[in-house]
């Protein structure tokens, strides 16, 4: 942490960690507005519908969403452990569970198709698809970033830069986990 020192010039590298943390927070505020808008749309559709799900649709089975929730929670947990202990093993487990999350999402979409829920079959299915697709697009980005962290761990020549990457990717990964849990609770459970 950089202490408060108004009027004093700090070492560039030290302060960069601080600046990047701030920037990442702003980015995440932005991303959360994107999801918040989608949630707003979801709630408007939901409160305006006489019954939910509308148009005689059935609520979908929560099996795959639950698997996704568990995997993304475990993954986030291992990232926290990695941040604390800096052990490569934790990072690998975290990334592996990230990939499993993506696989469970693919299974969810496959399951939806076998049930006859396509993107254009009514507002209920459309919402589930557009939420999960938007979220999955961010997950893919995050997996690429996790791969980058693994790549960097093996070549730690610039310690400050490495620190910035770990912090930022971590924030992003936990954020996506949080969004997923909100989606799980609102779209699938209640």
């Amino acid at each position, binding site marked *: 942490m950089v202490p408060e020192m108004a009027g004093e*010039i700090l070492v560039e590298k030290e302060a960069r960690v601080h600046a990047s943390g701030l*920037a990442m927070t*702003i980015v995440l505020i932005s991303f959360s*507005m994107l999801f918040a808008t989608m949630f*707003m749309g979801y709630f408007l559709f939901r409160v305006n519908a006489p019954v939910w799900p509308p148009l005689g649709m059935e609520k979908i089975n929560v099996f795959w969403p639950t698997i996704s929730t568990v995997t993304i929670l475990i993954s986030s947990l291992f990232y926290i452990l990695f941040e604390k202990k800096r052990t490569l093993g934790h990072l690998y487990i975290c990334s592996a569970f990230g990939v499993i999350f993506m696989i469970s999402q693919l299974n969810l979409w496959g399951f939806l198709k076998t049930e006859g829920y396509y993107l*254009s079959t009514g507002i209920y299915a459309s919402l589930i698809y557009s939420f999960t697709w938007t979220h999955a697009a961010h997950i893919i980005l995050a997996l690429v970033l996790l791969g980058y962290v693994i790549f960097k761990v093996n070549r730690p020549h610039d310690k400050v830069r490495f620190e910035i990457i770990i912090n930022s990717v971590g924030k992003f990964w936990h954020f996506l986990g949080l969004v997923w849990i909100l989606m799980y609770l609102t779209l699938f459970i209640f």
Partner: protein
Amino acid sequence: MASFEQHIHDKPTTFISKYIFSFDHKVIGKQYLWYGIFFLLVGGLMALLIRWTLAFPGHAMPIVGHLLFPATNGVVPPDSYAMLFTMHGTIMIFFAITPILIGAFGNFCIPLMIGARDMVFPSLNMMSFWVAVVSGLLLLAGLITPLGAAAGGWTSYPTLSTLLGSPGVGQTLWTMSIFVLGISSLMGAVNYITTIIVLRAPGMGYFDMPLTIWGVWMTSILNAIFIPVLGAGCLLLIFDRVFGTTFFLAGATATQGGGDPLLFQHVFWIFGHPEVYILILPGWGIVSDLLSFFARKPAFGAKATAMCMVSITVLSTVVYGHHMFTTQMSPLLTQTFMTLTMTISIPSAIFFVNWLGTLWKGSIRFTSPMLFSIGVIFVFGLGGLTGLYLATVTTDLYLHDTYFVVGHFHYTMAASVLLAGFAGIYFWMPKMFGVLMNEFWGKVHFWLSFLGLNGVFMGMMLAGYGGMHRRLYDPFVYEFLQKLIPVNTFITYSSLLMGGAQVIFVINFIYSIVKNKKVEDNPWEVGTLEWTIPSPAPHYNFKEIPVVKCGPHELGNPALKDRDFQYQTEELVRG
């Protein structure tokens, strides 16, 4: 928050690293300036075509008309007319004002005015510009698709913007373009906010920042929060158009039912109302500074001005409903939004008093940047006051979607932002290119533009008050509007005057750059940090990071001996 000293980058040597993929905030600022001026010309030409069609329906516009619409003998056909006003709005808002005011001045001024060597993330800054280029290409690509560009208005309300209203690829490209531009704006905003927080020179508190920086800062905060809202709307619209969902289609138009066209309006204006402040805040900042610089006295109530910007920023997020009074909102909501909207007049009025207070008893130097700044006071005053009639539910029901609205928002968003942008260009020309623009032609440019734009927008308000609706191809097929033909002809002649005046600017701008007559480092005699370094600014900005000891508007202090201003790096002189 502490600041830190960035190391000095090596001077770029190749053409590509110097002018194309440059990390230097000054070069990126200039790239944004050229980008914005290019789109300003395209959008301006579209405006002239719209005006020609309204004043002389069925007549070909000389030269341009025959070039663009050979099939109809030079006359703008109705479908192209819809594309013209859609693209005019989109281009002017997202591709002209945003790049010039936020992209160019934001990039150029922030590091120079807060005493930094560059933005905190230079490569993010470069990416932001090139993503904006991609977005501009996407938008322009719409013009050459088989069914033409987007034609649903700049607001792109469903169902006009869904496949039912516009089946062509143009609308999809429009939506994608706005989404991509949002990514670019977000990159810029993150960079600006972080830079202003962490890279202020030692000794520079937030209230020691020039008001320009306050304006850009508030704009960036709004951008970072509300651009993604439009992004989500665009995303769902793309889903509707490409994947066959029905988020924005309702009733019989949606085969499976369940969608809601109004949802897009909500999402659009939750973003859209902050957007109008996104556009004007940098302009306000520039004008607040320039008025003080050229009235040769401290900005009256500079802290209050800054705090007004903050409160307007906050209030702008809770008033969006006034765009939707005619959508069968509950009266309770309309009154709430009306009251909240009216509340914005309080900080705005304080703002105005501060501007007038700055001018009061100043020894004003009527240079061209100053003329443009005073012009902003006038046009924004008019624009703001006419806004009250649109914020009030009872009058809005009559005025909604008339040319009164068009006149109002052009006064606030087009006229004042344009004048503030010109003020900024004339003012920072020495720091950007190391030259001064011709003062005489600058003043001619101001007076012709000022007369022209008042003719146009005042005329529009009259026409709107007379009942003329916006977006009509030929309003005069309605008998009750035929009496408005003379007004419309007048508006069109005024717009030609205004358009012609910009030729003076372009020639003046390019001539002074080509002639390259060097000016001294501080031709305007002001004390903010960018004037302590050579003109044009060297690639590292500051050899030594400056230490700030006083505010940005220390002018006309009687204790000063040999000059009437002092630099921010100097200890405040006391009598």
